[in-house]
């Protein structure tokens, strides 16, 4: 591994907290992690190490952070309170910010209709179950517009605004 290419301050860009630095590689995060069963496995400890070392290229290429099931077992069990789930989210944020292909398409859906999927359109089924019509934001264009305006002020939306434009 060539260390001269690594960025020693990368951790500050990704997960700028002492929590991360407290990690002593004990592997507690690994043993109960559901996504560690994956192939390739999610190895939280290794991600922490890559962040600390500042292995920018390797980290940018690593998909495993996205396999996390967000169960947060690692947060509960981590003896050093590294808050590994927070770190995983931070790695994803950094990847999204540095590689537009990493930006999850689901945010476009949320931008367009408030949700990742169509909610409240299954009126017939709902009626058969005796359920009321849902006052979802999808059906309230003015309110949705306000939400979109707000999102437009956030980095991920403003920097990738082409993804959100009306076709």
């Amino acid at each position, binding site marked *: *591994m*060539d*260390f*001269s290419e690594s960025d*020693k301050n990368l951790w500050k860009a990704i997960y700028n907290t*002492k929590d991360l*630095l*407290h*990690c*002593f*590689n*004990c*592997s*507690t995060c*690994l*043993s*109960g992690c559901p996504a*560690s*069963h994956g192939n390739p*496995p999610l*190895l939280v*400890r*290794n991600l922490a*190490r*890559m962040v*600390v*070392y500042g*292995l920018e290229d390797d980290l940018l290429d690593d998909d495993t952070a996205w396999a996390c099931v967000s169960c947060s*077992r690692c947060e509960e*069990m*981590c*003896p*050093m*309170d590294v808050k590994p789930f927070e770190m995983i989210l931070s790695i994803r944020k950094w990847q999204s910010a540095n590689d537009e292909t990493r930006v999850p398409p689901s945010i476009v859906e949320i931008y367009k209709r408030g949700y990742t999927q169509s909610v409240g359109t299954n009126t017939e089924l709902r009626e058969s179950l005796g359920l009321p019509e849902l006052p979802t934001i999808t059906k309230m264009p003015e309110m949705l517009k306000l939400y979109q305006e707000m999102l437009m002020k956030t980095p991920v939306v403003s920097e990738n605004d082409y993804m959100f434009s009306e076709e």
Partner: protein
Amino acid sequence: MAEKKPTGTILVAGAGVSGIKAAIELAEIGYKVLLTDASPQIGGILAKLDNQFPTDHCGMCRMLPMVGREYASQYCMRKGLYHENIEILPFTQVKSVEGDAGNFTIELLQKARYIDTDKCNGLGECISVCPVEVADEFNHSLTQRKAVYKPVPHSTPQMLLVDMDACTRCGACVDVCPTNVINLDAQDESSTRKVHAVILASGVKLYNLREFEDAKSWAVSKDVVSSLAFERIISGTGTFDGSIKRPSDGKTAKRLAWIQCMGSRNKRQNRDYCSSICCMFALKEAVLAKEKGGDDVETTIFYMDMRTFGKDFYRYYERAVEIGVKFVRCRVQGVMLKPDTTLSMRYFDSQTEAFIEADYDMVVLATGQIPYETHKGLADLLHIKVNGQGLLPTQTYDKVKLTKPGVFVCGSLMGLTDLSEAMSSGIAAAGQASRLLSDLDVTIIEEEEIPEPRSQDRQTPLVSVVLCKCSDKVEKSSVDFAALEGGLKKLNSVGEVNIIDMVCSDEGKETVLELLKKSDCNRLIIGACHPFIYRNALKNLAKKAGFAASLFEIIDLSSIVHKGFFEPKKDEGVKDQTREAYNELFAIIENLKLKPALHVQTLPINQTALVVGAGIAGMHASFSLAQRGVDVHLIERSDKLGGYAGRHVNHTIDDLEPVSMAKDLMIKILEHKNITLHKNCEVTATQGSLGAFETKIKDNENQENIYLQHGAAIIATGGVEGKTAEYEYGNSDFVLTQAQLKTGLDTGQIDVSEAENIVMIQCVGSREKQDGEKQSREYCSRICCIGAIANALTLRQKNPEARIFILYRDMMTYGFAEQYYTQAREEGIIFVSYTLDTKPRVELSEGKPVLTFLEPVLNSEIEIPADFLILSTGVDAETSNRDIGNAFSLPVNEDGFFVEADSKWRPVEFMKVGLYVAGTAHSPMTLKDAILQAEAAAQKTYAYLSGRKIHTAHAISRVHDAICVRCQRCVDICPYGARSHDEVLDRIIVDGPTCQACGMCGVACQNNAAEIMGFSDKQIMAVIDAKMSKNTMGFAAQ
């Protein structure tokens, strides 16, 4: 024969091993001790431990006095402690402490036991009828006990009590009690006592699996136990007669796992410290499990760092590896109970980079010490405030001395201590208390005259027999007293038989004394129940009546008949019981008849101490002794005082300032009238024994020999920074040792402001097997990890941008030092572990080191050009140790450090009585630990030098020169090192104070030339003859 002796009373609160040690030390000098414990028993955690590292045996008795052993009743320490100067108050809480040093008033609350233990015969009739069963805390709830119970199953006498929380007050025990000593209405009793000083030794709380949330992932089965519970499982007196079985179903356990750091090294749970003891605890248990359970037992230890930092710890670890203990560097989240009751754990195996789900029969959790819990309460008791860490505030350099005068602390209460530190601190606390009392001049003149024993020479042996009929017990006894008396009187060697009531009472003793004063007999037997409790009172009584101590036997009547002497009379068996008692007494009389009159050796004591080495430990010990009026010769090889730390270490990570501290100490040393300093001097030879050593020293400046007389000596030679030729050391200006870096940073000669990468390598030339030519330190130097962190933090301050790597094998930041490790990571210092198989490699490129090492987490090689490479080369023993060892005939281990008498129980003593060790001469240690040992060594020395003479025991071994062939088998076998071969005289010499009369020499000697006085073959044969004589006492044979 009046003599000035120290006196005073000291409260020792807490009767675990450190408290007991402090109490014994004080009692030995002559102080009175109140030894309390909040629990119903004494012995603390150690009462539960059968086996201690590194011997894997119990060695608790080794903390008993060596020379004054006849003043204490010497029993197995796990059974109990008896010393005439120690008043033991179990089940007693200290409710208040008022007043000042030298004048404390303490209020004690003795909890009701509901059983008068003085009168209880301990046979436990009550236990067999008690209908209540509750979990037995002694066996960690692995077994059940009754509401009336023996808190420690092996203690003597059996200190029974009633657990009132469990008791249903059914009264069955009261009805059945043959001695009528149960009172279910008993009340707690308060008392007020005056003491001069207080030693707190209330120990530590252990992490409790039931109490803490983070243990819940493990609490899935009875087969997940704490390490202390596992001790009870493998104990011969424990739950399964010592075989390794599962608590859940009693099936043999073959696959065992240990989980380290349970309840420690956990910042999330606010426990960012290392419990210090658990790694060795687990290692020992894993080794024992292999040894006891057989070769097919699989043992795995899950760990983060194996903290084998103490003396000989690393070699023990190597032994564990050799016998097949498996080590997995992974912290595991929890355990899963499978339907077939096996315990399954999933872990990441870094070597194969694969997850493994492994099954175990039992899982042992290394539950650590929890240091803070009781400190607040104790501080309130003393009307002081806890320090920032929540601990009792101690003096900066003295771990055992609280900021409040007159109050001392020892054992685990100080923090996270192991057994040897518990011992050192117990001795040191006793020493500090004795220094205080010496300052306060609390002394009295002992004036009692003891008559010379009546002459025995050429007199026919005539035995006086005194039997206690113990109140009305004799009426009920199954032994026919009248018949017994008649039978004994018929013996020619018996002059008289006196049946006395209640020998234990003052009146009883008075009656016996009057009777004995008139007696014509020259030998004496006193038989009573549980006489070991007041053995010394009876001894003194015999002495006053003029009986020689060696011609006097105290026997326990309640145990000479195997069913119990005072077993209530039944219709059957009176004759058998009486005959049995008679035969026992007859055998004792036959032995006593042949016993020679033994005399104690009275050794004059030269009240001067010799201290070798004027480092901080040596200076501290010297000053401690001088302050108590002992003259000290302090020998220093160089022309400077202070040793390594006192001259080179300005500041330590825990805010100590060794150099300025050493300067203060130097001034005190130079000014003190009792201290004679010999600079530029070396010890070349010594001879003599306790009280009378003569040591030859060579003055290198004046080229002359000086002869010094002294009563005892402390070796405090210190150590030096280790040397190395590894990692291009010596070939580049940028490859330095930690000491060179520290000096360079202190003086400003090393500029790190432009550095980009600084790499440190730990364990350079350390913790590796010594292999033929290859010289290595096969031990952990203990201070390097903390030292490297300290230097790294300094570097970080000087250069916030540099990358600082510490390449380590196991971070030895034990105890509270763990917080420095955490702090260092927080400051961005990167720690990378390596193993002996993956040592870092260094090449020089344009004079600068380039490091290549395996990153174990990412499993890839990293190459770093380093601006500086700093090597932690460990601590080497002083080269002069071997010469000094030769001069004093003291053993030096293969690493060049001195070998103490026992690594756990006698850490500052040598086998040879009168010689002590302190500081790095013993092994590498921190400054505070060195000071602690110095204080302890000074105390051990003071114990003998405080008087003008000491007495050896009556029974010691001797040599019949005429038949001795000088084969020296006895010298080799003597476990105390009391025997030596004098080459000049060509004789075997026995060091009287050191000999403990164990008899090993007698067994080893093929010519009967080694004899334990008072244990001749003739006597033993007489005893056997008597026991086989089948004397019918006039009863018809049945």
